[in-house]
């Protein structure tokens, strides 16, 4: 639920409660006010009747519809002015209606008169209806106004916040672009934006430093490595005995491996830096066939059985160089981590590529599969960066990659 919706909902609940209390209050105050006015009016009538009686008007002529005058025995005790509720049958409505009755007794000119009058009081039900009607109208207006206001607020007041959220979501270290946030006058948002700007700028700087270091380190490494390699190769040609030869070859192999690590790390760094941004549509079927063709002899040599089902003209958006590296690494892996007389299955459809190979189960958790420098013990010659590179390429080309081990088969699935 959106923040503004939450606020609005709470506001409406509170308004609702307040309005109910307000409704009750207005009900009672309206009722008492109406009653007061009614009693005042009825008393005025009685006072008028008493004045008329004092002037000597005959009671009968005063007695009318709602005024009742009757003579009491002198011995009856005088009653004071009293207000009571009564039910009077109204012919018009054909039912008894609550009425206010004001009565008193007075001794006028030696006669004891009982004078009473009544009048319609406003039905409580009517008041209730009126109150409920007005309150709910108010509530309805509130609802509409609050709704509109909340939309306006979220558009206007929360705009910087929403922009910040969006900017954070879209922020990528690799893009090397500093976070651009909207100017705001709201203190909290200002604080948030300042904090985020500081944090992301620092992250960008650190990232840049690390990146440059990796790049420079691997570039600077290559020339000395080339020198060592060359010297060792020249040394191999000189007069040496078997012992020396072995030493030289070990050193040569180690240099080779070091250079491979360097190259792979450079490649990963470049992938990180999005140096291969230009995405073209590549005929994946063709690249895959070419790649399999290149590995054909290796596959045969290891007596592996290749089963391939490759759909024609499968187009994938990927950098051409990356598609080569990707497939070479995947097929290379399938060959290297295979068993004798094993199987490699390659299936390409427009939606996905599945490369599976027979092999022993992993001796590390499958989640670590794509981590750098993770490898199964048996092939120590490998550097352990192949799948890390594969993963990186997939991420950059918006390809989903997943791994599964079923029926003694390692299955790598790429969904385009």
């Amino acid at each position: 639920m959106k923040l503004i919706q939450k606020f609005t909902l709470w506001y409406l609940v509170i308004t609702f409660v307040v309005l109910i209390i307000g409704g009750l209050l207005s009900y009672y105050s309206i009722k008492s006010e109406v009653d007061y006015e009614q009693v005042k009016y009825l008393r005025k009538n009685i006072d008028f009747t008493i004045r008329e009686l004092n002037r000597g008007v005959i009671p009968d002529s005063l007695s009318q519809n709602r005024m009742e005058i009757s003579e009491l025995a002198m011995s009856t005790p005088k009653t004071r002015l009293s207000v009571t509720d009564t039910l009077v049958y109204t012919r018009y409505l054909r039912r008894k209606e609550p009425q206010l009755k004001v009565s008193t007794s007075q001794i006028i000119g030696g006669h004891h008169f009982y004078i009473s009058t009544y009048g319609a009081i406003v039905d409580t039900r009517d008041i209730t209806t009126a109150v409920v009607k007005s309150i709910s109208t108010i509530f309805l207006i509130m609802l509409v106004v609050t709704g509109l206001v909340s939309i306006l607020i979220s558009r206007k007041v929360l705009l910087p916040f929403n922009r910040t959220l969006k900017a954070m979501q879209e922020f990528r270290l690799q893009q090397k672009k500093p976070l651009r946030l909207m100017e705001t006058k709201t203190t909290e948002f200002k604080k948030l934006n300042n904090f985020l700007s500081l944090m992301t700028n620092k992250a960008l700087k650190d990232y840049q430093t690390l990146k440059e270091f990796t790049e420079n380190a691997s570039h600077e490494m290559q020339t000395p490595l080339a020198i060592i390699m060359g010297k060792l190769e020249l040394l191999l040609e000189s007069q040496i005995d078997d012992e020396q030869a072995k030493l030289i070859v070990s050193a040569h192999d180690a240099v080779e491996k070091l250079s491979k690590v360097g190259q792979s790390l450079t490649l990963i760094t470049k992938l990180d830096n999005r140096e291969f941004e230009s995405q073209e549509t590549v005929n994946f079927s063709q690249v895959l066939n070419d790649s399999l063709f290149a590995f054909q002899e290796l596959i045969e040599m290891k007596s592996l059985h290749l089963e391939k089902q490759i759909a024609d003209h499968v187009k994938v958006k990927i950098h051409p160089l990356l598609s080569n590296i990707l497939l070479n690494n995947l097929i290379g892996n399938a060959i290297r981590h295979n068993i004798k007389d094993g199987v490699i299955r390659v299936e390409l459809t427009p939606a996905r590529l599945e490369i599976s190979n027979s092999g022993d189960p992993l001796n590390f958790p499958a989640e670590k599969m794509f981590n750098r420098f993770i490898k199964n013990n048996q092939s120590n010659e490998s550097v352990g960066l192949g799948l890390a590179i594969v993963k990186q390429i997939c991420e950059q080309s918006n390809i989903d990659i997943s791994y599964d081990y079923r029926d003694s088969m390692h299955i790598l699935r790429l969904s385009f």
Partner: protein
Amino acid sequence: MKVLVIEDNEELAQNITSYLTREGYICELATNHFQAIDKLNGFKYDCIVLDIILPDGNGLDILSHIKSEKIDSGILIISAKNSLDDKVNGLELGADDYLTKPFHLPELNARLKAIYRRKYLQGAYEIRFNEIYINTDNMEVSVNDNMLDLTRKEYALLLYFLTNQNRVLTRQTIAEHLWGDYTDNLMNFDFVYQHVKNLRKKIVQADGKDYIETVYGLGYKLNTNK
């Protein structure tokens, strides 16, 4: 073949020149941009080995100079930067091949020879070595006029041995030549062993001499003195 090596690192330059000299090439060395231009203006070379990162200028400038002066030499770029842009730029500016540091000296030699073949012999080149005859045009190999049925890798291997005669080629060097970069050390040495074994078998079966010998612990060598 006359080769100009343009490389600022003297040790590396020395590696290259001493390997190529033993191969019978005439090598000259330029360690900076100025020297390189100077030599290019004064002499004619069949091939140029060019490092594109030089202390006093970009190697790609030299490449432009070569093109603008219409110097007709084969050009092999060597660079520590395995950067695609450099590769593309270099090849677009007219370089013939691109090699990333660190490289194997036999590989450098093989690339130079390939450039030379393409450039001066119009690709159609016959390599004859005693009873072995290779037609690089249609990739046909025969021994004593018996056609050999070689796989692609075996063909490449034979060519590699013939370009680096009497040189010790380690299994790593061979593996890299056959399978190239980017394969995460895919090549098990067994593969190299298998390829070499098959190649030798096929040559011997065709009544050829077994020139390729195992140098124990090191690798293999095509011995011309057999």
